[in-house]
């Protein structure tokens, strides 16, 4: 089975901190995605990547950046965390966009 591992289940950070959310997949998938999930808003796409060193903005990229130095790892970076970035962050990977495999999520609280 495909495994998508997110480095932290829960994370608490202070406003202004630089935050790294790590995601690793073990199935050699080209595609990787970062979503955030908020009550009443569903899942919204932040960034995605089709290959190493390649990245594309999703619907809500402001305040975020990403890094994909190796195929299996896709990192989401909050350059200067703000309280409105408190959310559940979900990483996913896929071979084709016909079946996404999700990690367990990181619940980030920014105080």
């Amino acid at each position, binding site marked *: 089975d495909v495994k*998508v591992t997110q480095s932290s289940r829960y994370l608490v950070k202070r406003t202004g901190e630089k935050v790294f959310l790590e995601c690793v997949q073990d199935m050699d998938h080209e*595609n990787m*995605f970062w*979503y955030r999930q908020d009550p*009443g*808003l*569903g*899942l919204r*796409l932040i960034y*995605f990547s089709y290959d190493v060193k390649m990245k*594309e903005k*999703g*619907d809500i990229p402001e305040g975020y950046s990403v890094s994909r130095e190796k195929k299996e790892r896709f990192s989401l970076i909050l350059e200067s965390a703000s309280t409105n970035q408190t959310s*559940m962050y*979900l990483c*996913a990977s896929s071979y*084709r*966009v*016909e*079946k*996404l*495999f*999700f*990690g*367990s*999520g990181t*619940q980030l609280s920014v105080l």
Partner: protein
Amino acid sequence: SQQGEEDPQALSIQEGENATMNCSYKTSINNLQWYRQNSGRGLVHLILIRSNEREKHSGRLRVTLDTSKKSSSLLITASRAADTASYFCATDRRYSTLTFGKGTMLLVSP
């Protein structure tokens, strides 16, 4: 931007009953997928239906797609308490990404 919208937002039923959730979308699609999310966890892919298919089955799941009405339904037959979860439809869009709806919360009581 939201593409799929699920209906109802919440559904409460007893074990053994059937659960039906609906999804409407706005633009043409190549396929539509359904995912399940147990409380506070990641999403799990359930089933995919292509735009040229009208109905698909997988175990106790039945999905229909009506492209003329831009809508899909997910039927879970003989529901169990373990089916309690949120269910999302997802449609493919530009750059081969997926857009998810806001989900239907299903509660199955023993």
